[in-house]
């Protein structure tokens, strides 16, 4: 596999302005994504993990420009896609695709699944019905569904099947990068395994890169080469998968790993007190300091930045010399 950087995100920010009061004054911003930088290589899977509200879904959508970035650059195959106009953006839509969490609401209930899968092809110029039909059949078979099911409607399928359809739809325009936003969270355990295996197979077959967004670390472990941990809009740690699980450096990562219920290990759990602070008003200094079990005095004042501590292992924490 080539080691080219397929996607490089630099200092990406997405703020949602909040207005209120009688005169609709600008009260502040919800800093959903607050300065995120990372890259994904060709054919690689980067896992992005974090809890609800940390901004991971927003990050995924901003990369696709389904949400417009407030600041920062996104470089895809050498081009800064934040600067593309509408026409050029359309071309991009063939290259980067997305799979959603909820198989129920991510398919148009009034379109047959054949139409849903073929829509991308239609939009990008394949108007010949027969050729489109063949491609749709091809996609269906690749994800393990029979061709004649193309005429059915989403409500006639189970969740697992609907997720496969969502994957087929994302694959149809032959993308290079797929953003998978919690693709298995809403599925049963045995179906989760099936879908993850499918994603692994497709990656091998199509040389796909994935940005796998999930809150379940064990899923990430299985499928990703590298893992990024997000908290309140920022990446707090990024490293190779094996490295993170053996040698988690950031206290939040430690807590996440210890929180996973496991049937094979009895472990000491690190319980995080309190709740995730509001992204409207993040704590000063290090955002995690209010809940950190290894907090230092400096954490209240200065915000740590991501630093490479060796081996491509990045961490943003004062404990590790920043």
């Amino acid at each position, binding site marked *: 596999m080539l080691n080219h950087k397929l996607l490089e995100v630099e200092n990406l920010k997405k703020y949602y302005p909040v207005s209120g009061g009688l005169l609709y004054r600008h009260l502040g911003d919800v800093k959903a994504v607050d300065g995120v930088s990372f890259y994904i290589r060709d054919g690689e899977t980067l896992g992005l993990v974090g809890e609800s509200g940390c901004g991971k879904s927003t990050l995924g959508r901003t990369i*696709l420009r*389904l949400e417009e970035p407030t600041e920062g650059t996104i470089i895809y195959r050498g081009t800064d896609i934040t600067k593309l106009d509408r026409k050029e953006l359309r071309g991009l*839509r063939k290259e980067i695709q997305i799979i959603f969490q909820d198989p129920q609401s991510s*398919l148009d209930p*009034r*379109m047959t699944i054949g139409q849903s899968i073929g829509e*991308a092809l239609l939009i990008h110029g394949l108007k010949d019905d027969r050729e489109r039909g063949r491609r749709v059949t091809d996609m269906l078979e690749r994800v393990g569904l029979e061709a004649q099911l193309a005429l059915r409607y989403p409500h006639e399928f189970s969740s697992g099947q609907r997720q496969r359809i969502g994957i087929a739809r994302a694959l149809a325009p032959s993308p290079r990068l797929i953003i998978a936003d919690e693709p298995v969270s809403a599925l049963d355990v045995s179906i989760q395994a099936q879908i993850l295996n499918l994603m692994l197979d497709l990656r091998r077959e199509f040389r796909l890169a994935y940005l796998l967004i999930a809150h379940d670390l064990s899923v990430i472990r299985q499928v990703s080469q590298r893992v990024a941990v997000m908290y309140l809009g920022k990446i707090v740690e990024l490293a190779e998968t094996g490295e993170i699980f053996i040698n988690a450096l950031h206290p939040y990562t430690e807590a996440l790993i210890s929180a996973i219920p496991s049937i094979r290990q009895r472990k000491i759990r690190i319980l995080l007190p309190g709740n995730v602070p509001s992204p409207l008003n993040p704590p000063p200094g290090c955002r995690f300091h209010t809940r950190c079990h290894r907090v230092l005095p400096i954490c209240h004042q200065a915000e740590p930045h991501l630093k490479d501590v060796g081996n491509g292992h990045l961490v943003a924490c004062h404990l590790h010399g920043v």
Partner: protein
Amino acid sequence: MTKKGIKHLAGKVGGIKNLLIILLATLWGLTLLADIFVVEKIFDPLGYLYIALGIVALRYVVWPLYTGRRLVQYYWQRVKRNRLAVLGLAFILFLILLAVFGPLFTPDPTAANFEQKNLPPVGFTTEESIYNPQTGQFITKTISGTWEHPLGTDNKGRDLLAMIISGAGVSLQVGLLATGIAVALGTLIGVVSAYLGGKVDNILMRFTDIMMTFPFFLLLVFIVFIFGPNLAFIVLVIGLTGWTGTARLIRSETLSLRTREFILAAKALGASDGRIILAHLVPNVVSLIVVIATLSIPGVIMAEAALSFIGLGDPAVTSWGMVLRAGQQSLDTTWWVAVAPGIMLFFTVLAFNFVGDGLRDAFDPRSSV
């Protein structure tokens, strides 16, 4: 026009079906222009409205129903289980048959026949007092209904059954056309407003608010004053002022649809705003549109009946309202003239309401039908 040329053109507008519709619409426009400026009347105004509605219905109702046969079957199964809805549908079908074929078997509803005036319906008898100037006394004479005029006649001898049948036709036409216009307009404004949001939404909704307060009645009086009473105008006025409720409802539904993931998915695939609105949003509000339309028809029919009742109706056309108007003065003697249209209106409104409710339940995924 070569075959290739046609295919190319079709590709540009989004399919053969759109090409055909554009062709038909252009023909319609040209005919209308010719009618106004050049030639003698080709169609009357109502006719033009019909054809326009027909073209829109063809593209947005008939074609989707055909391509989505499976879905239609699925919903039909659900509707069938609601007995009241089925009864309502049966009644509406009966009305349609009555309106279409009835006139073949009954006399002209406007034909006055003074010799046979004030006849009661079949099976009833009335008494009439006749003054005999020679004897100076009143003689009561019983008149009974005949099968020649099964529902009786009014004070001008016009056959009531014929009038009711004509009225059925009018109510259905007005219901269909006026509702069609109102719903089409309301949907367009609602969907565009919700999808584009922001300033456009604001402007359109304020416009809707203004239209809501519009005194449609005054407008109608004004138009009648200038152009004379004409059914086409009534239809147009009801249609052009009655879209506001629909717009609001469709807008709120679209707002909630807009955030659904499949819309986001379509955007991610590269769909343009136009495509998202037409291919994704509209088909998903269709069920709501159908329910709104079905439940609006009774209101429209009653509006027309009310207008005719107070005399603003089209005198060339016999509608139920008009018959009510004729019959209301002599309710104590020739009661059948008022009762017949009253009963018809009652059942028609009920029928459409039942069907509308049945459709609403069938379309709601949460209700277990």
